[in-house]
């Protein structure tokens, strides 16, 4: 069964990406209940995908349980081919159209712009789950996943109005959220965190890490080795939530 849980909360990172929380109330039949979540972007992190069941009737805890989740991302090459084809179609529409009336022009522009901005992250990922119910009932499902999409991020901008004495001022802070992804989030609880999602490792990009030429590797001696180890070591990065 296809379901579209409402996005209830979106915690955005200033370095791009965020955490999405979605929620839906579901009616369950006795037996296995399979659900497919729609509108899951391909930029979601499959490893972080998490489902929590909230029992409306506390007695259901012994009868309703999450059996499994099924997660997958679309193939990159195929997705890219589809995106390229869409972009080419958009270019053709603009090139070969003789005339646009005012209304049509805006519609066509919107469609063409959307396709020109489309990337792999705007494709749809698969996030299914199976709930095992020993009896009929209702349940609230809470879904949470990381969004690895640097096109959605926030930044602050500060405005300082100096007073005439030159020693005091009025300071105003604004948060500017930029969403250049293909997804819209309406009426969501927003959270902001200072965090940067670690860059995709070279292994996942199909490059063998050990093939990377490193200047330090040529230096001999213990000091050089220690320095190299320290350089290759990860630095702590703790997420800090903004107090709004």
């Amino acid at each position, binding site marked *: 069964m296809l379901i579209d849980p409402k996005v209830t909360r979106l915690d955005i990172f200033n370095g791009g990406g965020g955490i999405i929380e979605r929620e839906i109330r579901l009616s369950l039949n006795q037996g296995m209940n399979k659900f497919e979540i729609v509108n899951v972007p391909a930029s979601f992190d499959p490893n972080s995908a998490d489902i929590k069941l909230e029992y409306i009737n506390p007695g259901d805890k012994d009868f309703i349980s999450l059996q499994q989740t099924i997660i997958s991302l679309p193939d990159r090459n195929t997705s890219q081919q589809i995106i390229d084809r869409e972009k080419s179609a958009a270019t053709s529409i603009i090139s070969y159209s003789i005339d646009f009336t005012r209304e049509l022009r805006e519609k066509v522009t919107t469609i063409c712009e959307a396709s020109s901005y489309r990337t792999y992250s705007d494709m749809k990922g698969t996030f299914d789950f199976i709930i095992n119910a020993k009896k009929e009932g209702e349940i609230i499902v809470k879904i949470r996943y990381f969004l690895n999409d640097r096109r959605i991020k926030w930044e602050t901008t500060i405005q300082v109005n100096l007073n005439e004495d030159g020693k005091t001022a009025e300071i105003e802070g604004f948060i500017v959220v930029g969403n250049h992804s293909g997804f819209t989030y309406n009426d969501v609880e927003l959270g902001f965190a200072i965090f940067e999602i670690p860059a995709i490792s070279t292994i996942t990009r199909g490059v063998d890490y050990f093939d990377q030429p490193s200047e330090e590797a040529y230096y001999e001696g213990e000091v050089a080795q220690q320095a190299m180890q320290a350089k290759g070591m990860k630095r702590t990065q703790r997420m800090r939530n903004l*107090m709004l």
Partner: protein
Amino acid sequence: MKANVPTRKKIKLKWFKSKCDFTIEREINIQYTANTATYNKQNWDVIVKYVLIKEGEPKDIPVNSPMTLYKNNLPFLFLTTSGTIGNKIISEKMIDDDITVDDDIVQIKEGKPEITFEDALKPKEHIEVRTRYDKILRKITIENKLDNEIELELNFKQTKDVTFVKSEPEPSVKEEPNYKYNVKIPSEEKKFVNFELQAKIVKRVTRIKPEFIKREKTQPK
């Protein structure tokens, strides 16, 4: 905070608004090497940063956030933040072009060289090390081209080759190797700081040992 975040759009949300204390911190950092201490003329930059101490609860503002300063409702400076410490919001450091610092040599009194020898790579040679301690007098001229009085901190840091002897005026804070001067300069005026420094000048020359020079002369061709 609830909001709509539409696709391919930017939204601007109000975060906070409060009163704050505004201070401008300027500093000049001076440090010489044995070589630069003897230059006829040098120029130093005045580094300026803006510090805002905000009322109310602290806000964690990410580094490099754009900040615009307005005076009489007109923007007069665009800069970015370099960090926050509690209620303190600190701007990035910039060079203040309205304050000029000229550093001129006044006098060099060369010291008597002391000669020592070190082994060279070749057995017939040695390195002659000539060490002398020069007294150097330098004059720092700070000019305030702004239309208001400024306060700045001049930091002199002595190095292994150039050490502090005395200065006019005396430093406000003396913490070896740092010497700090709090300088107040009225609008369109100049202030001076005179340094007396000692520079260790070391010159190394590789020479043939005297005994081998003689032997070469006496050898028949």
